[in-house]
């Protein structure tokens, strides 16, 4: 027997096969239907945005890791995922170089500056988007498509909606509704939030790449739940809070759930491990907080959308949440009683 060759290490001696790369790949798989569909709907310009954003994110990671003389970890797929997520939050008509810069910003500013994977405070993809959004706001106002430009989404419903919102040229559904509710524009006749349900679920050309189909995002979310990559808490409490507050405000909760970045944010961004709380209870608090901030931003700021800044804002609170909202410790109830009776 080759005794001297026995491996001696401490327990446990078996490991769950899960690893970082698998997790990242699961998320990429979950995002692939909506990505492919976005390419189909938006065509070549979307492909450039996607390619530039992923290339930028990967390059950012590579350069920083080389510069810091630490192992390059492109093989864990995390930079690729960051680039993909970023692309899905960008307008399809964005110039490719803006997408590329956003990608670089995502991994350099959003991740490596903080010390790399696991150390960043803010969601890297959203940091990249925020940089582009603040630097070139015009592209985010007009970078959206109209259905006339894209064959597949050009249905009668789409034409009808675009006919009515022509006054607010190129408006995303959220923007259109904001104009209407704020009274900034005369309510287009016959346009209701409910007219949007179907396009939002199935083919929505008036938004960022990832907003093309709420249905595909939800399917992706179900896949992540089933593979246990994410839990339900953040997503459900986030969307639930937005829906409830929206209903209380007297607006259409389903529309406000499906429109804009809420679903992609709640399913894929807010659930980012590094930038969300560790414990389950903390996740609930975080989700509710996200909902409240999103609602505030959407209805009480000048911007129709609020998901990006809500997530970035709540990201900043995560250390605080982690500090004060811990899991219930076994045996802590007994201690409390003892203290009480003594």
């Amino acid at each position, binding site marked *: *027997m080759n005794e001297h060759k026995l491996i001696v290490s401490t327990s446990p001696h*078996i*490991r769950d096969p899960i690893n970082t790369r698998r997790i990242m790949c699961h998320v990429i798989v979950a995002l692939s239907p909506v990505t492919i569909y976005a390419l189909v709907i938006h065509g070549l310009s979307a492909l450039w945005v996607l390619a530039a954003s992923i290339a930028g994110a990967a390059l950012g990671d590579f350069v920083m890791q080389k510069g810091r003389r630490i192992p390059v970890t492109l093989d864990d797929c995390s930079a690729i995922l960051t680039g993909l997520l970023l692309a899905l939050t960008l307008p399809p008509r964005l110039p490719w170089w803006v997408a590329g810069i956003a990608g670089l910003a995502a991994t350099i500013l959003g991740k490596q500056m903080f010390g790399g994977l696991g150390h960043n405070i803010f969601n890297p993809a959203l940091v990249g988007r925020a940089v582009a959004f603040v630097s070139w706001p015009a592209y985010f106002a007009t970078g959206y498509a109209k259905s006339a430009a894209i064959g597949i989404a050009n249905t009668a419903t789409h034409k009808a909606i675009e006919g009515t919102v022509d006054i607010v040229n190129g408006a995303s559904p959220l923007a259109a509704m904001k104009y209407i509710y704020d009274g900034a524009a005369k309510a287009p006749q016959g346009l209701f939030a409910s007219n949007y349900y179907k396009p939002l679920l199935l083919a929505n050309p008036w938004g960022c790449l990832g907003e093309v189909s709420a249905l595909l995002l939800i399917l992706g979310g179900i896949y992540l739940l089933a593979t246990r990559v994410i839990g339900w808490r953040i997503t459900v409490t986030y969307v639930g809070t937005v829906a409830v507050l929206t209903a209380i405000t007297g607006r259409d909760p389903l529309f406000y759930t499906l429109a804009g970045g809420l679903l992609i944010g709640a399913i894929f961004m807010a659930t980012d491990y590094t930038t969300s709380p*560790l414990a389950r209870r903390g996740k609930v608090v975080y989700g509710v907080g996200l909902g409240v901030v999103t609602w505030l931003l959407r209805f009480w700021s000048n911007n129709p959308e609020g998901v990006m800044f809500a997530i970035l804002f709540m990201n900043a609170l995560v250390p605080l949440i982690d500090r004060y909202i*811990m899991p219930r410790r*076994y045996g802590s109830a007994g201690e409390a009683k003892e203290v009480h009776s003594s």
Partner: protein
Amino acid sequence: MGRTSGLLYRIRGGVHPSDSKEPSAGKEIRRIEAPATVTIPMRQHIGAPCVPRVGKGDEVLVGTVIGDSEAFVSAPIHSSVSGKVARVAPQPHPAGGEVLAVIIENDGSYRRDPNLEPPGPWEDMEPERIREAVRAAGIVGLGGAAFPTHVKLSPPGEYPIDTVILNGAECEPFLTSDYRLLLEEPDSVLEGIRIIMRAVGARRGIVAIEDNKPAAIKAMESSARGSGIEVASLRTRYPQGAEKVLIANLLRREVPSGGLPMHVGVVVNNVGTAHAIAQYFSQGMPLVERVVTVTGSVVREPSNLLVPLGTSFAHAVEACGGFTEPPGKVIMGGPMMGLAQHTMEVPVIKGTSGILALSREETGYSVPAEPVCIRCGRCVDVCPMGLIPTYLGSYAHNEKWDLLHRLHIEDCIECGCCTYTCPTKNPLVQLIKTGKAELARRKQQADRREAERREAVGESGEAGKDE
């Protein structure tokens, strides 16, 4: 309370590795012969080690006391064979390092020590006499922890015990020795729990079994019918068999931090321990052999063996047809908490519930040089104690001792769920163990300094008060 409770109890946290019990679960317990020499270490339990009571050249018989101790937390050690003491010398021990051991040349006749006698019927025996008998039999916790059983059966008066739980969860993957005992010897297990209940004055007795062992549950239920002993079926999930988890799930009671089961009126024993107690009361033979599951992908015929204590791992594996290929790792116990061995020449001891041999591939995961945490929260979700393993691991790594204490590192039961589940393969429980040891060392040091200071000041307590 003749009925059995068919409830499925939930566990908080925990993990669900493949149970891998299939290779040995169907194998009846088979007694094997001891090798030509047995090596019986003088430390086979938690507490004070034994002092050898025999020397080179002494004749011993099966059941002869060969080591004992004056300490309360200790248990005597008996010879598992008849023959002659060859030597008393330090030998490799399965818990690491070298430990003084009595090495006996087995004469192969297994003559029984004539002084051995059953202690008499337990039904109307004083609890104190039962405890003495349990101690005399050298019985310790056979689940692996090896805590002297008579100590567990001696709760101080201020902690009345109402419930005895027999732990048959056997939540470690691969191991099947408790399962086989429940299946083959349910009556003896039942007898054992009743003896324990009498010793501690408990009215309620529960045999707890995970629901991946339906045959054992059935056997135990039919044996327990009409006895008042309950059989509880537990949801299969590691570490369902950890004392604190078991108590919480069965009784909805939580052992306070730093406390023992007796603080909530409970005594937990392993089914093997109960069986050993019952055996002693019926046969008068102390603990000289135990059931050991020999299993793993590289063992030719995974089996459940009744092994004389002191038998080498190599001999036990030989009795199972040997290895099909050189093993990568040999573990005493299960894969979650067991101890990796560096030689096959270590002996089977009282705490050896299994010998697990894994192939090189199975153990070939890489551990990162520098722990990385992607903050996925998995370790937090699986920790049955409600701790935050990732913080504990990183604070231990960075030597932030006071933070470790603030996060209750001492509550960690070292189940290993956090390490098992971590996607970045952080050696969390390893780091936590180091942190715990260091904290304990510092506390000891501080206590000693404090004592010295008091001595110097010449008073006994007031000096330290105003700090």
